[in-house]
């Protein structure tokens, strides 16, 4: 098992190094030089040279790369153009919002998607099955931002059940936020009004963000359960006279949920892409909104830092999923 983990960790090294080279090259390839951006169009060559020397841009390219690498391993991603603050600080401040949103969406997707897929498979050919297949196809094809607008129009603008934007009502501006996770903050400080308000703000964005993962999880669960139901060991278990409940729990679900765990782990990237769009529609002050705002302001250090952090998290989550898979299913380890 340890060898398996170490081998997987070693594969990560070239991937992350390659990524750092790609991002280093990316910044060089962006239109406009940093000196030009600082000095404007009418800068003299002498001024440009001075800035380049100060920023170390006159040194050989590999020296510049290693300096860049040295900075990013210390989590120094530069300064955000939008706010003039370190990119890392900006991300840490906004991270709880996105985390809260992402986790809620993923929970929603799993809690609804797995049973939906399971019952669709069990009642194959019935209306529930067809509805699940059709619904999941539509769920995959609705653009997140369009769905977000529709939810906002129906449930916030027309019905007024949920708030329109943000994470907390304006009148709760002086509510304390010791952790930055607003739902948790409400509980910790005992402020039930703020707790409930934070949940209400979370519902619509979370539903919008959950749709695509939900559709994918329901489909995978359905396919996996169908596969397992045809296995010999399920027939054996049934013919042994085990009760339906035991067969379902011990033989069907335990085997069918294996591929589902992998797919749940893979939703991370999709959730991050979706968060950029969803947070924009709901003016939800998370990391995704920050990145969306970075586009018109040409805040490239923020985009670069975000890509680095997200990609690193993504490969680490994949590793954890693989290891967990190896723990649950011994067959994987042998291969």
């Amino acid at each position, binding site marked *: 098992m340890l060898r398996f983990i170490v081998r997987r960790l070693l594969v990560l090294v070239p991937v992350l190094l390659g*990524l750092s080279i790609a991002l280093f090259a*990316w910044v060089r390839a962006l239109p406009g030089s940093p000196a030009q951006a600082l000095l404007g169009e009418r800068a003299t060559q002498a001024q440009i040279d001075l800035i380049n020397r100060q920023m170390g841009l006159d040194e050989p390219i590999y020296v510049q790369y290693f300096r860049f690498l040295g900075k990013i391993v210390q989590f120094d991603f530069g300064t955000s153009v939008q706010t003039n603050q370190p990119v890392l600080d900006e991300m840490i401040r906004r991270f709880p919002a996105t985390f809260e949103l992402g986790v809620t969406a993923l929970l929603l997707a799993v809690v609804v998607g797995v049973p939906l897929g399971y019952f669709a498979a069990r009642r194959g050919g019935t209306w529930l099955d067809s509805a699940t297949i059709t619904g999941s196809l539509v769920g995959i094809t609705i*653009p997140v931002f369009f769905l977000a607008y529709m939810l906002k129009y129906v449930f916030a603008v027309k019905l007024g059940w949920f708030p329109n934007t943000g994470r907390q009502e304006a009148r709760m501006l002086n509510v304390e936020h010791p952790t930055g996770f607003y739902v948790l903050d409400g509980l910790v400080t005992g402020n039930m009004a703020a707790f409930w308000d934070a949940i209400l703000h979370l519902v619509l964005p979370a539903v919008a963000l959950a749709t695509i993962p939900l559709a994918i999880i329901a489909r995978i669960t359905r396919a996996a359960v169908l596969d397992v139901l045809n296995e010999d060991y399920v027939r054996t278990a049934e013919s042994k006279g085990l009760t339906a409940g035991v067969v379902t729990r011990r033989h069907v679900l335990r085997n069918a949920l294996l591929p589902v765990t992998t797919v749940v782990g893979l939703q991370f990237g999709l959730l991050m892409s979706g968060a*950029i769009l969803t947070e924009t529609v709901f003016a939800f002050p998370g990391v995704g909104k920050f990145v969306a705002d970075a586009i018109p302001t040409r805040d490239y250090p923020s985009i670069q830092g975000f890509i680095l952090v997200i990609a690193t998290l993504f490969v680490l989550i994949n590793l954890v999923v693989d290891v967990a898979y190896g723990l649950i299913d011994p067959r994987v380890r042998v291969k």
Partner: protein
Amino acid sequence: MSLGAAEAAITVAEEQGGGLWREAVKRLSRNPAAIIGAVLIALFVFVAIFADWLAPYTAMAPDLSQIEGPGHVPGPSAEHWLGLDDNGRDLLSRIILGARQSLLVGVVSLLFGMAGGIILGLLAGGLGGWVDSTVMRLVDMMLAIPGLLFAIGIAAMLGQGMTAVMIAIGVVNIPVFARLLRGQMLAQREADYALAAKSLGVKRSRIILGHVFPNSLTPVIVQGTLTLATAIIEAAGLAFLGLSGEDPSIPEWGRMLAESQRHLANAPQLVIAPGVAIVLAALGFTLLGEALREALDPKYRR
């Protein structure tokens, strides 16, 4: 039997075993989802090609007589079936003309991504060894960045505009096709026909290019159909974020949606119309792609 004749026999056997496509079409014609998908695609392509003739008005000419004041958005009427946008331009015409843009982005980015993916996949699956590991690490790296974020990065590098959006979405899809083709080629290399050709002494390059590669393309084609749907959605997403440039004479569904957001409360049709257009176009390719996958997958054959 000469080597050439023996190889020809293998090719014939492959083709007979794989009346695959003819049978797939037969199965597709019995699948209602596939038919709905095909109809949606046909409609979408028809509208895109004949947009100039179909659109009742031009994309730009505003009908300012209908606008009663700033912020007023005239609703549907006999002359303007979907109403006008906040600049007095006919919404239906802009949706129709937007179809052309969406189809163009979808097809160009798909071809770009597929070509790149096939080259990388062919290199990895065909040559193996260090080429394979290098290509696969590159693919891992590209897949580690969430698609939309990756596309944002590339579009930022190329400067805003529809060309940048097409290339960005194409590049994001390269690793998907590369990995798919490589996996399929590795599996096909062990297939009986490949082993038969090898035992006949057919050259390795010829086995790979002449037999393994063409037999590995089926899942790539299925994925291509599905990718057209995601490419249309992703293009709308990038346009929504403001990366498609600002040219108002080229209506783009994602940008139309973004520009109409402030009218959500008083004129929701401005948001709903482009949104529904995106969903229908994407749904067509998804339905046909899924049906194609089922029709070509031996597991689903009854």
